């Protein structure tokens, strides 16, 4: 019997979606459904781990083992899950506040360990669920509910940060281009190691519909002239100030992942120590 071909529909759930009409995150969700189908991941072998925020509700909107965790902790929870079940596919997801503010420490160290996850960040430059406060990627000077005189801080550059930290896969997508984003998620999932996919995913309620226009006007799709294995080129792209790079910015293979390192260590330990049972281990206490 031929296996049944999975389609995007197979990854939808009955959980009611709480997003505002026109929210950029719908595009991301569609791209995730399509990517899962394209990768033909059986839903029971997929884990989608998110944090807290509008976008983090996405953990419930994909037919998978979804986990809508706590604020900022999607990455360590996803990493623990991957470590426990390396044979499974793990997607982590969340927003810019979740990943680049309260969860920054985990962002840094998950990259350092090259935990084999695809991390989809719906970057909307605002705290949406709490109704409109300044976020770590809000442009300098922007008026928000918590910065009535304009944002005094300069925004964080997640792409440059990830590159500097040694991330092995860095891409940027746009929720207004589902097909392109789907391809990025597919590539990120196939990549062995930590894959950051920062998605420009506008908040129409607190940032306005024009955010879509901004990305459309300033977005530049990286073409063949960009070599994603070239760190210097990647670095230059992350420093663009007017243009918004879209596509795979940086990618290297062959860096050991957290779960591979763990498996190697287990093998090494068994060769060296070869304890069959915990009773054998008693001799260390004599």
């Amino acid at each position: 019997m031929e296996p049944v071909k999975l389609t995007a529909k197979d990854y939808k759930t009955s959980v009611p979606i709480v997003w505002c009409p026109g929210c950029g995150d719908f595009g991301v969700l569609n791209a995730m459904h399509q990517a899962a189908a394209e990768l033909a991941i059986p839903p029971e072998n997929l884990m989608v781990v998110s944090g807290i925020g509008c976008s983090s509700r996405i953990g419930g909107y994909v037919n998978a083992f979804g986990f809508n965790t706590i604020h900022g902790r999607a990455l360590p929870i996803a990493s623990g899950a991957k470590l426990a079940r390396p044979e499974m596919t793990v997607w982590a997801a969340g927003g810019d506040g979740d990943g680049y503010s309260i969860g920054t420490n985990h962002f840094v160290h998950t990259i350092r360990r090259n935990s084999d996850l695809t991390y989809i960040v719906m970057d909307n430059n605002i705290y949406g669920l709490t109704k409109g406060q300044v976020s770590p990627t809000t442009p300098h000077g922007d008026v928000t509910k918590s910065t009535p005189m304009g944002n005094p801080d300069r925004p964080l550059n997640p792409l440059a940060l990830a590159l500097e930290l040694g991330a092995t896969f860095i891409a940027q997508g746009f929720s207004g281009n589902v097909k392109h984003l789907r391809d990025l998620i597919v590539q990120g999932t196939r990549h062995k190691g930590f894959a950051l996919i920062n998605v420009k995913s506008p908040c129409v309620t607190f940032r306005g519909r024009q955010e879509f226009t901004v990305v459309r006007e300033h977005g530049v799709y990286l073409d063949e002239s960009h070599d994603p294995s070239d760190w210097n080129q990647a670095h230059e792209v992350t420093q663009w100030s007017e243009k918004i790079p879209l596509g795979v910015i940086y990618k290297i293979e062959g860096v050991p992942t957290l779960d591979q390192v763990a498996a190697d260590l287990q093998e090494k330990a068994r060769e060296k120590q070869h304890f069959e049972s915990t009773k054998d281990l008693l001799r260390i206490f004599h």
Partner: protein
Amino acid sequence: MRDVTLAIAGSGGDGVITAGDFIVQAAARKGLNAFMLKSYGPQIRGGESSARIRISDRPLYSQGDFVDFLVVFSWKDLARFLDEIKLRKGAVVLYDEADKTPPEEFPIDAELGAELIPVPFKKMAAEEIKVPLTKNMVALGVIAELLHLPLDAIKDAVIKKFGKRKPEAAEVNIHAIDLGKKWVNDNLPKGTQIVLEAEGTDEPKLVMTGDDAVAFGALHAGVKVFAGYPITPASPILEFLSKWLPNFGGTVVQTEDEIAAISYAIGASWAGRQAMTASSGPGIALKQEALGLAGIAEIPLVVVNVQRVGPSTGIPSKSEQADLYQAVGGTPGDIPRVVLAPSDVEDNFQVAIEAFYLAEKYQIPVIILSDQFLGERSETIDEKVLFARKRVISRQLAKLNGGEYKRYKLTDTGVSPMTIPGMRGGQYITSGLEHLEDGRPTSSGTIHQVMSEKRARKLHLIAEESGFVRTYGDPEAELAILAWGSSKGAVREAVEAAAEQGLKVKAIVPQLIYPLPEKVLDEALQGVKRAVVIELSYGAQFYRFLRAYYDGLPAETYSYARGGANPLLVSEVLEQIQKYAQEA
């Protein structure tokens, strides 16, 4: 004497702890019981340190209130331990004559009539062995000879430590030990000895610290993912598992912070593997939000808290029992959790297994409340006792038959069959949001009530699990001491001492603190007219906890509570027993 307590005090580089370890290992080899407390100052290297070792052929429950035999490398260092090292009348004190402190300035109470003996520890090590660092081994030889400790067993321990890698180091150390022994015979009159008359069973015992025991217990229970962040006094758990867990197919991650550590454990357990994290009070505070997630999402999880003196940084290297409130009441919301309290080193091993048993069976976070006093002390343990109790640790997985799967199905027990990734048709949404039976989020107050009841049902069953209360002493006594965790040692010893004085008293020590096993406590308290709750918490957390959560206390219930740092003494407990027993 059948029961000797000796102490060695010096600076970090003096090898005080190493010498202590050898004594304990030698005792273990002879089948004797030993108990060792280590104490350090705040310095990383070179600060004061002391080892306090008690040896007997009788079971040992505490460190012993008084020291019979003291070795001082430096009077200045000893002065820092006066809180902890109290000499018995007529104790023998050996001090290094290289310390030129005038005798009138020795920090020793003249009324104790201690026998003071100068010994050239440093000189012998430097001039005869030519290795000044061996002065601890010279002292070990002196101690062994004076106490009649088994010298062959000490030498065995030395050889084992240096092993095949450094045979010359073993030789030098053994030479130093022999030199110490010879010095005693050449210089001290016969009769100076405090002879330890304990006969070992010759059945070797194990030597374990409480931190190692809890880690070993977790390993035995089948932990597969451990995540931790370094913190005194819990780091040895991280180190033990880092060394041994990979051999058993598991992984240790030293995470970026405390929150990540519990998060890794939650993720791993949710994905289907037994997981644990460990920390001390300040780190546990950081983990509280995630602990609540494990509670509402009903994810099995074991969290060890090796309590230290708080609040905030407190005294990191010393013990207290003041994280009880944090354990039973931490995290926002009404979240079911289990709190287990081990009471000695062996119990740390058993409680780790019980923790996994309860966590997996009831899909609930379990907190193990150990403390520095348990975690960092060494005790000899009978191998036979260790594996005597068997527990089947398993998680109830759903049987999927193609129908609709409800992760949080309302059941009589409150436990709903779980699925883990890879189980076809078992997908669901897990979250910290209040949820319907199938996991979908809800804001309904009615559902919140129903789900709160469901989660609480598990607690009623856990409270009825057997074997979680220990009682000691006279079952008919009208006076009871209520204690928990590491206080058990001094309490148990005091209860035995009281019995010898003809005082009727019993001790009740619950191992399961939350939910309280009320029925068993009711039985234990039958006929009891007065109770004293004894603990090392200035705020009397256990007393107040019992008052708030338990209706069965006798009308006359008193509190004896003080801050930690100095271990609970047998004499302190005995005083309470005498006070309240005499009112009978």
